[in-house]
């Protein structure tokens, strides 16, 4: 069988993969900023809660988390459809890593900047949103770029909770045709292409974030 015959079905799967990835990136970014800021600005109790969130979602393996929310939670009466579960778990997982990135970038803003803000009598929230975050976001971008690619790759695991994404489609076609070599080669190339597109998209976002950023950076005199 000619491998081009698989393409329509793989395309459908790729659309699902892209949807899940982009949704997880969006929700994950929100979680990352929320918990990352809590880690730095939250005070004892809130920052401990944020710490628990990051440690649990970074420390327990996405595979376990997916199955836990898919199989185990319904048993205690909480259930979503598989796609929602997939997106939320993936988002919570990468959000944990993202929160660490946000925390790291926020705590690397130079103390002089904070002193300057205090000297101008900015409030804590003004300092955070007008001074610290705008500078920190620029620092976060390269790491966020990597995390976005990571999200795309990890999204393949949702095929295991019966979501018909690209990996799932590839598996189904293989089970029908047993034509493993071309199926998996095409699938790998699809993922690689999506990664490249995502990488370029993140570069665009990075350039947007960097606009007006006139601080000298390494490699620039």
């Amino acid at each position, binding site marked *: 069988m000619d491998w081009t015959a698989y393409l329509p079905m793989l395309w459908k799967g790729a659309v699902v993969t892209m949807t899940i990835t982009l949704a997880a990136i969006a929700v994950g970014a929100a979680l990352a900023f929320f918990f990352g800021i809590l880690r730095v600005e939250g005070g004892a109790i809130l920052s401990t809660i944020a710490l628990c969130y990051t440690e649990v979602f970074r420390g327990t393996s996405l595979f376990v988390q997916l199955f836990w929310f898919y199989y185990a939670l319904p048993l205690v009466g909480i259930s979503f459809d598989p796609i929602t579960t997939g997106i939320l778990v993936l988002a919570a997982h990468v959000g944990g890593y993202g929160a660490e990135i946000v925390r790291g970038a926020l705590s690397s803003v130079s103390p002089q900047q904070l002193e300057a803000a205090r000297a101008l009598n900015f409030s804590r929230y003004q300092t955070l949103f007008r001074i610290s975050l705008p500078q920190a976001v620029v620092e976060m971008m390269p790491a966020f770029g990597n995390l976005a690619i990571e999200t795309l790759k990890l999204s393949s695991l949702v095929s295991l909770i019966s979501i018909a994404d690209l990996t799932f489609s590839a*598996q189904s076609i293989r089970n029908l045709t047993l034509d*493993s070599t071309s199926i998996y080669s095409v699938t790998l190339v699809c993922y690689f292409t999506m990664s490249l597109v995502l990488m370029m998209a993140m570069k665009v976002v990075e350039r947007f974030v960097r606009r007006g950023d006139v601080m000298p950076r390494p490699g620039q005199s």
Partner: protein
Amino acid sequence: MMYGYEWDTTTWLTYTISILPIILIGLTVTLKAAVAGFAIALSLGLAFALLRRSRVTAISWTTAFVVEFLRDTPLLVQLFFLYYVLPEFGIVLPAFLTGALALGLQYAAYTSEVYRGGIEAVQRGQWEAATALNLTRMQTYRDIIIPQAVPRIVPAMGNYLVAMIKETPVLSVVTVLEMMGLATMIGERTFEYLVPLTLVGLIFLLLTLICSAGLHRLQKALPKAGIPMR
């Protein structure tokens, strides 16, 4: 393998106690897979890093492409590829080895970047001094470059080991019975997933915390006399 076992599901505690021995057997498989995968990742990654620095552009570009491809495609699909495609070319490996190889390949792409960064962080003057003292390229790598690169790369490598441990459950999809595979099997048998999955999650969390603490200590114990770390 689990016929004949009876799980006591009366309370979560008795259930936990009755499945714990099996899960711990799975843990040893998990750890073996991580160690084997990491050994492959460390050696293959070094090979990638050195080939990437080859003066022959055809070699360095090909290596760069392979590394990028491995890095940008999912471990799960790579694993399926190895598991189903290798036998078509007459290479039949046990599932465990296929799994370790998949882990190793994916992480070799990561470790090669770590090696590369570590090697490139060594100043050019060090190469020149080694040349002026007439050391061979081998001796220069072995005595000058690698000893200076190692303290820089150990923390990053450690983080990748921890990350790899957490990815080993993927091996269960190709029939390797590590922790996660056993936990879902128990769940299928008893229709009670919450306890086995939570238990596995907790063990992973514990492993991660222990490894991170161990890494922190190792980093402090490393000989880095005089090496500027930044």
